[in-house]
């Protein structure tokens, strides 16, 4: 699953950039809130960046399922199986 691995790495890279940490320190099992120290506002900010990077919208109803790094990866694998590389996204006029 090259694509799945790609997505996992992109999620961890995005998190590392957001948290200003080394990507190697971000583990799939890390809980966003307890292990990575993201409060609700920081989680929303992170998801905003992931929405941008993967060109999709994450509805509020899906938020409760996004607890760990692996949850986010699995979610994106379901939602964006053929997501383009992060920089290729055209800017939508609505943002």
């Amino acid at each position, binding site marked *: 699953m090259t694509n799945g691995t790609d997505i996992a790495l992109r999620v961890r890279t995005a998190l590392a950039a957001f948290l200003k940490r080394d990507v190697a320190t971000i583990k799939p099992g890390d809980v966003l809130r307890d292990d990575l120290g993201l*409060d*609700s*506002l920081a989680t*929303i900010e992170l998801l*905003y960046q992931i929405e941008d990077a993967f060109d999709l*919208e994450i*509805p*509020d*109803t899906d*938020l409760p399922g996004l607890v760990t790094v692996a949850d986010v990866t699995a979610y994106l694998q379901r939602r964006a199986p053929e997501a383009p590389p992060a920089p290729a996204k055209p800017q*939508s*006029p*609505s943002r």
Partner: protein
Amino acid sequence: MTGLGVTSAIGIGARHFWQAALAGRSGVSKLTAFESMPMEAYRSQVAGQIHDFSVGRYIQGALAERVDRFAQFAMVAATEAVADSGLQLDREDPRRIGVMVGAGMGGMVIAEQEYHRVYQDLRPNRVVPNFIPEVTLNSASGALAIMCGAKGPNLTISTACSSSAHAIGLAREAIRAGRADVVIAAGADASIVPLTFAGFCSLRALSTAFNASPEKASRPFTRTRDGFVMGEGAGALILESLDHARKRGARIYAEVAGYAATSEAHHMVVPREDGLEIANTMAMALSNARIRPAQVDYVNAHATSTPIGDVVEIRAIKHLFKRRASQIAVNATKSLVGHALGAAGALAGIVCALTIDSGLIHPTINYDDPDPDCALPGISERAQERSVEVALLNAFGFGSNNATVVFRRCSI
């Protein structure tokens, strides 16, 4: 409190507002304020809008035309409140009349219009000359002073959603400190505009699950609540010293008996989950009023219909009032009009005054699926009849800000 005025999504005028509130009418509708935008890009598409508002229908003159929508709302509400109080402003000492207005956002209509002119049209030389006076947060308090000839203290309080609760509390303190005989306390906001609304959407603060049934979207204390509904409007209250009110034989709705302002010093947009800071704020306000928790009959809850906020407030009420919590009537004015931000505290204060005056507690609409974690026997989807001697108003704002105001029936 001797005069009330309301500009709201369920009625212009305190009488219309109160009748609609008691009848449980929702002011929340499909978002139509900026239909030229790609509406599908807004997660939330409902709002408590005041439709077809035209200030000229209520107030004549250039001043009202030259202020932003939120200040127009405030002018309409204050005009009604002054008339309702029976005050003859031209017979008062103008230096003894103050104005205190709570506003969370300011002149957002002109702000967004002129941002467009600069950033999109690239025409900074065509920004309207009145932009600065109109966008400024204190334009509403300035306009009220000019309209009423009020030369006493003129302040704008901006603490987001608790702004006008503080305006009421600080108006009382100004009168008690002898700085004014009369204070026009008001709150106003009109921020249902494309950028500001989008900002609240991005913050994931707004309800998104009820876009197809707008009147159901503001549903405090229910299991299915999923965020607040943006509202707009204004409320105005005339506060005066007891002596001043008695001398002129004024009708007194209620006394503003106590007030507390605190900060949780915790988080910009989320309250402490244990509710202890809110409980402490209510306790301080009651202490300020020299009233015991056991004397409280009614709480006008902040209750915005957010998953966290509602449960924390109820936790705080249970913590402070203990067994008394099950005997207190509690309602959420935001179930009717959405969250009018800087106007919310003033509208809640008006509800407290009318509740004490009428013995009627307006329903919390959409309370059809109570969340067990928010449940109290005193919350009802129907109007309740009950004599209220002491009422509490809670208001909490972004920036970790809490306010409680205590109202008491004036027995003199």
